């Protein structure tokens, strides 16, 4: 606190690097999801497509500051940017959407239901809130094995998911066990069509923190720098043993709930409010303004993303789907229980 000017400077040095890095993942995610939406609209994706448009800054700022191969990151449906930042190969995403048998779930599950728990990224189930206690368990196990050290685990959810019993039980359990859990709540103002005033009645979701005896912060989820700094703070607190942390990012979902939904329930006022600002444009402007990159460099980032996305999608499209006749139809792992 005494020499906060000094600290700020130090942070600023780091900030430019993290900001550009995070921006890269944001661009990649947006580019990928735009392509996937188009493919979906062309009728070539079976099932739903849920994108993170408008949430990339919030999503990627957390994951880009986690340590791959050490920390735990549990993304949800709008975390393409965070997944990428945490190290998910783009080809995993492409394969899962396009039903390639070479995807991480070999066609057994689709779209956002992919992960790699051995790399610290558990695969989500659809039931909202259910992944948080799984992250608790992963952290708990590391502590029991004396391998926790400075590991943190992050679980992402939306405003609507805070109404689930699962959210409450897991957060409370984490608080009791003082686990280094970060719950990242993307308050995008809607759960499907339901506005937040039909979902909770507190002034701010972050007011929940005190009720669990944990730290909480509220940030502008459209602002890349605020996201980076906010997550930086809670990650260090969690690493330092301060227990669970809640981060609420205020922003707007700039898409429908899924790509099938044109979200008529989002008012024009809200769309044109501060919440409705596109974090990606804002980030680009900021990066250029601060001279962290030139406009040209930013454009290169975009071009590179396009190349990567094209390659991943082309690859996945060229691959076969699973063959039901040779598929391993076994829900058991133990050899003696397999058919």
């Amino acid at each position, binding site marked *: 606190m005494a020499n906060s000017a000094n600290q700020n400077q130090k942070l600023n040095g780091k900030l430019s690097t993290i900001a550009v890095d995070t921006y890269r993942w944001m661009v990649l995610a947006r580019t990928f999801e735009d392509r996937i939406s188009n493919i979906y609209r062309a009728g070539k994706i*079976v099932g739903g497509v849920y994108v993170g448009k408008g949430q990339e800054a919030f999503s990627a700022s957390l994951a880009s500051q986690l340590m791959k191969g050490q920390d735990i990151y549990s993304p949800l449906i709008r975390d393409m940017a965070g997944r990428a930042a945490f190290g998910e190969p783009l080809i995993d995403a492409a394969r899962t959407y396009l039903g390639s048998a070479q995807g991480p779930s070999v066609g057994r599950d689709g779209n956002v*239901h992919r992960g790699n728990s051995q790399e610290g990224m558990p695969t989500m189930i*659809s*039931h909202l809130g259910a992944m948080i206690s799984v992250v608790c368990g992963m952290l708990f196990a590391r502590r029991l094995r004396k391998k926790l050290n400075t590991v943190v685990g992050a679980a992402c959810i939306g405003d*609507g998911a805070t*109404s*689930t*019993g699962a959210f409450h039980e897991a957060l409370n359990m984490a608080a009791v066990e003082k686990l280094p859990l970060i719950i990242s709540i993307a308050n995008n103002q809607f759960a499907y069509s339901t506005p937040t005033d039909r*979902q909770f009645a507190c002034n701010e979701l972050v007011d929940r923190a005190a009720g669990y005896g944990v730290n909480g912060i509220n940030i502008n989820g459209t602002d890349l720098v605020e996201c980076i700094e906010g997550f930086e703070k809670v990650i260090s607190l969690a690493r330092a043993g301060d227990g669970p942390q809640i981060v609420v990012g205020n922003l707007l979902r700039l898409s429908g709930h899924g790509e099938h939904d044109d979200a008529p329930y989002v008012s024009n006022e809200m769309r044109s409010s501060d919440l409705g600002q596109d974090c990606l444009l804002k980030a680009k402007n900021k990066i250029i303004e601060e001279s962290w990159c030139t406009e040209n460099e930013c454009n290169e980032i975009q071009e590179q993303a396009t190349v990567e996305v094209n390659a991943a999608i082309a690859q996945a499209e060229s691959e076969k789907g*699973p063959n039901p006749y040779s598929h391993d139809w076994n829900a058991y792992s133990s050899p003696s229980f397999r058919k």
Partner: protein
Amino acid sequence: MSISYLEAIREAQSLALENDENVFIYGQDVGAFGGAFKATKNLFQKYPDRVIDSPISEDAMVGLAVGAAIEGMRPIIEMQFADFSSVGFNQIVNQAATLFWRTAVPCPITIRLPSGGTPGSGPFHSQCMETIYAHYPGTIVMTPATVEDAYSMLLEAIAIDDPVIFCEHKYLYYHLKSDSLPKQTLPAKSARIVRSGRHATVVTYSAMLHEALRAADNMKNDGYEIEVVDLRCIKPIDMSTVLGSIARTGRVLAIGEAFPWGGVTSEIISRISSEGFNLLDAPPVRLNSIDTPIPYHPDLWRYHRPTASSVEEELRKLIRE
């Protein structure tokens, strides 16, 4: 006029709201938005007090319904997908289903479960949960297979003084159409002989009815006449219709889309064997989905659940027995 299975569900709810002020609908996005599948489209606009968006709280949604039922209301709970009712499981089986038995106060609630597989829905948006709820005392479990039944059974479900688990099949929502809504209806607890035949009986329900009918059609060319029984309500089961059919055919195949351990086909075959053993000319047969979660990929999914061709295969084996 042409009306879909989904529209029939909407019409039934509309009529119930109109006829009885005690009826209300509670569920995620059921209000102004009209529900994830549009099963409540325009109902909020007509009955703004009684078509209400809930938080994402399946446990409390069912608890609220039970409380309202205690006060004499007739709530309809829409689960966004049947699969998410797992979170409300405790309130359904332990609170709602036991209420009358414990307190002599009826529990007239209807829980609508958009059920069953469609291509690309995957393990958590495709489940058939009728088995789970049917196991518990106090529940009535309906599984309509036709547009007409979707309509008349839902109306009956809402009128019944016990908790009804209403398993509506998502695969039928848009595809299944009818010319009109029924005037005369068969009580929900009666099974229906949808097609008569003499070589074998298929006992089934919900979306599988249509696979069975297709199989029966295909086999007709070879001179096989397959009788098809639609259970309609899987708890309680109308055994007399089932046994009556088997008395005519001597052979039975039970088909269900749910997981293979336990469930409707198991209950049906078990009861047929106990109660109608001497009617059987060949071992009774079951066909269910494969014993894994429901796969996302359409090619896997089609292989995972019974289809007209796997039904036909089983039927041909059964008839040769």
